[in-house]
C-alpha cells in the first residue's frame, strides 16, 4: 500500500541565513496491507517528518512516495485531497477543528464528506465515542474546551470513523489512561485485521510491541555528516 523509494528531505531556513537541515536521504521502505509498522529512532531522527511526507503535509525533495498507487511527490493538491478523503487517514498528535462544531459531528465528518448517509455516519460516531468513553453529555459540545486526554480521544474517534485502507498514527496512546489505551490498541488491531496498512509512532514500548509487526529505524535514513 505504501512504497517509498530513495526519499530525501531537507529543510532550508531562508530567514536564518539559509541554513539547510538535512533530515532524510535515500530512504527506502514499504508497508503492505494488514501490516503495522512502527517508526523508531531518537528524538529528532525524523519520525514525524516521514509520517508527514506520507500524508502530503511535507514536500519530499527527492524520491518517490507511492500510496495506494498515487505518487504523492508529483500529485496535484486535488489528488492528495481525494486520497486523504478515501484512502489515507491520519491521527495527528493534536486535534485541530473548526470552533463550535459539536463533537459528534467532528467525528462523523470524515464519513459525511465521503457521502455516507447522516444516520449511518452518526451511528458510527456514537459507537466510537462510546467505546472511547467520552461521556454522552459532551457529544453536543465543541471539543475545543475539552481536557487534553478527551481531545485526543475525540481525535482518535475521528481518525477511525472511516475504515481507511492506510492509516498514520502519531503517538496514538500518549496521555491516555489504561482503559482508554486498551481501547485504542484494540481499534488498531481491528483496523489491521480489516486489512489496513498502518504506520505508527509509539513512544509507548509495550503498545508498540503489541500492535507493530516490525520497526523501521529512521535514523538509518539520516544523511551522513559531511566532515
Amino acid at each position, binding site marked *: 500500500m505504501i512504497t517509498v523509494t530513495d526519499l530525501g528531505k531537507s*529543510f532550508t531556513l*531562508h530567514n536564518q541565513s539559509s541554513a539547510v537541515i538535512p533530515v532524510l536521504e535515500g530512504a527506502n521502505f514499504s508497508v503492505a496491507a494488514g501490516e503495522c509498522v512502527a517508526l523508531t529512532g531518537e528524538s529528532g531522527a525524523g519520525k514525524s517528518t516521514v509520517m508527514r511526507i506520507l500524508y502530503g503535509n*511535507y514536500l519530499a525533495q527527492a524520491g518517490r512516495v507511492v500510496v495506494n498507487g498515487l505518487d504523492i511527490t508529483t500529485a496535484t493538491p486535488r489528488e492528495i485531497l481525494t486520497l486523504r478523503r478515501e484512502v489515507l487517514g491520519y491521527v495527528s498528535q493534536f486535534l*485541530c477543528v473548526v470552533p463550535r462544531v459539536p463533537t459528534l459531528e467532528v467525528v462523523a465528518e470524515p464519513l459525511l464528506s465521503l457521502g455516507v448517509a447522516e444516520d449511518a455516519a452518526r451511528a458510527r460516531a456514537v459507537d466510537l465515542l462510546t467505546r472511547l468513553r467520552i461521556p454522552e453529555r459532551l457529544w453536543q459540545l465543541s471539543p475545543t474546551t475539552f481536557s487534553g486526554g478527551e481531545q485526543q480521544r475525540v481525535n482518535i474517534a475521528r481518525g477511525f470513523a472511516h475504515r481507511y485502507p492506510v492509516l498514520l498514527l502519531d503517538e496514538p496512546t500518549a496521555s491516555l489512561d489504561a482503559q482508554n489505551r486498551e481501547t485504542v490498541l484494540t481499534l488498531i488491531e481491528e483496523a489491521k485485521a480489516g486489512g489496513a496498512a498502518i504506520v505508527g509512532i509509539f513512544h509507548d514500548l509495550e503498545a508498540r510491541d503489541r500492535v507493530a509487526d516490525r520497526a523501521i529505524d529512521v535514523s538509518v535514513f539520516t544523511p551522513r555528516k559531511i566532515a
Partner: protein
Amino acid sequence: MTPLLQVRNIEKRYGARIGCADVSFDLYPGEVLGIVGESGSGKSTLLNCLAGHLAPDQGEVIFDTRADGPRDVRQMPEAERRMLSRTDWAFVHQNPRDGLRMRVSAGGNVGERLMAVGARHYGDIRQTAGDWLTKVEIDTARMDDRPSAFSGGMQQRLQIARNLVTGPRLVFMDEPTGGLDVSVQARLLDLLRGLVRRMGLSAIIVTHDLAVVRLLADRLMVMKSGHVVETGLTDQVLDDPQHAYTQLLVSSVLQV
C-alpha cells in the same frame, strides 16, 4: 472534470505600479482557495479582476457557465456579466456596508436579490428571506430592522445571506472575518464551512488570517508584491513553506 474557473496570466497595473501580475490557477467545483499575503500584495486587486469589478490589463478569466460551458468573462457583454454576478457569483466584501443596502430592511436586503433573478411572489420571497436569516443566525424578529441597527458581526452574516440566497456556484470573499472579534469569527467560520459543504460551492477567500485559511481552504496561494510566490495544499504550505516570504509569514504568527 472541467474547472469552474480557469485563470490565465492575469495582470493589472495602476500606472507604473503593479497591482498583480502573472497569476494563473484553476478552481474546481467544491474547492476553496485561500489567498494570503502582506498588505498591498495585490490580493484585493486580483479578486476584483476575477469578479469583474476591475478590468485586468491582460489575461483570461474563464468561467464554466451553466448554459454554454467555459467562457471568457472579459469577452462577455456587460449585461451578461452583470447577470452572472447576480446569479452564479457572489461577492462578500470586507466591509459589510459595501455589500449591503443600509437603508433597506434586513429582509429586504435578502429579498432584493431574489427579485433580481425573477422572484415575484411576496409571500415566497419573505419566507425564503426568513429562512436565510435563520441560517445565518439572525432572529427573524429583526427582519424588518435596517442593517444599520445591527452589530458588525450581524451585518457580516446578513451580507453572507444576501449573497448566498440565489444559490451561487462561486463566492468571492475579501477578508470576510476582518474586524470581527474572535468568537464572532468562529461562528462565521463554522457557518461558511457548513454552507460550502452543503451547497457544494466553490470559494476564493482573501484573508490575512492563517488560522482561517487552515480551517476553510483546500489550497493556498501566497502573494507578495503582486506575484504568486507559492501555492499548494493549504496545510503543506503552512507547515512546510518553501519560499522565504512564506516562511516569514508563517513564523511571524504564534500558532496556527
